């Protein structure tokens, strides 16, 4: 008779086992805040469609201090989500080559983050111009 009795270790609470997993759960968890922000945007759009009173209600919500604190938190979480997303980017896209040389991962991450900053700046400037009533 075989004395073999392979032991399988449990996976319970695996996400606490390694700091790497904790960070992974944290950055994946921030996706919930992306969803919350999308909901808020959608609510704004619906209010806009419903007419002036609803839209003013939405603006009042944005002005309400607790909502501002919540939106500040959402912004922080979105930033964390964006940064970690770009940090893992080199692992998820095909290698980028210029001529024969392969770009190192950090260049791809940095390029992605710069693009994120540039896009945000363009968007913020556009919104600011609109708020001012055009050029």
């Amino acid at each position: 008779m075989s004395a073999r009795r392979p032991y399988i270790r449990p996976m319970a609470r695996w996400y606490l086992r390694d700091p790497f997993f904790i960070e992974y759960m944290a950055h994946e968890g921030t996706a919930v805040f992306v969803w919350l922000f999308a909901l808020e945007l959608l609510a704004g759009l619906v209010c806009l469609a419903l007419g002036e009173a609803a839209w003013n209600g939405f603006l009042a919500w944005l002005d309400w201090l607790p909502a501002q604190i919540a939106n500040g938190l959402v912004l922080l979480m979105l930033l964390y989500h964006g940064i970690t997303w770009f940090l893992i980017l080199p692992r998820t896209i095909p290698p980028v080559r210029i001529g024969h040389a392969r770009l190192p991962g950090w260049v791809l991450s940095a390029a992605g983050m710069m693009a994120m900053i540039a896009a945000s700046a363009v968007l913020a400037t556009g919104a600011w111009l609109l708020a001012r009533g055009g050029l």
Partner: protein
Amino acid sequence: MKPQTKTVAVLRYRPEQDKEPFWQDYEVPFAEDTSVLAALNYIKDELDGTLSFRWSCRQAICGSCGLMIGGKPRLACKTFLRDFEGKVTVEALAHFPIERDLVVVMDDFIAKLERVKPWLMPREERAPEDGEYRQTPQEMSLYEQFAGCINCGLCYAACPQVGLNPNFLGPGAIALLHRYNLDSRDGGSEERMKLISAELGVFNCTAVGYCSAVCPKIVDPANAVNVNKMNSARDYFFRFLPRPAPKGGCQ
């Protein structure tokens, strides 16, 4: 002068007498250059001959000494006692069943490696008179990194998805598959892509990325897995379009 010693805690499991694994401490003398593998050999030779573990090359190339050291997947011959404060914990590779002490059951992993058909399936049959299959250094550079895998299993121990679903093909096997799919001389991509797109293929991966972080050979299996998510999606959405000739030219 008495040599410095360090406590090495080893997760023991002797199936014929232990219900479950337990920790056992050993005091091991160490110097600057004492690897964890050297410490295990000291324990086996001097303190406790019943300890079981695998090793062979002592130079990070055979891939047999993969263990959880300080809770992380590492090669015992490439990890040094000097890098640990206090006690060093040594445990069998996570996500593999423990056969005995630090020895794990590798059968399933080996079967996965075989399943990806890790050999060249020539794109065109040639007779010896036709000459060899030629490849430029550039064509080779596409897959070279994925050919560096030593099958140590650290990436499986790093992948929670492998732990949660042991049937997942897993990072190492997919990296090996990718290596052959990228080879300009090979014609087996289509066959291998079936494994990639299957239930137990790349879409089990949630891009934790730890597999690549622990890889001792910088193979970056996470990249092989995630690039194949794109390849699989491309094959699905563009399946009605004529496919370009696969891979580079091999004449």
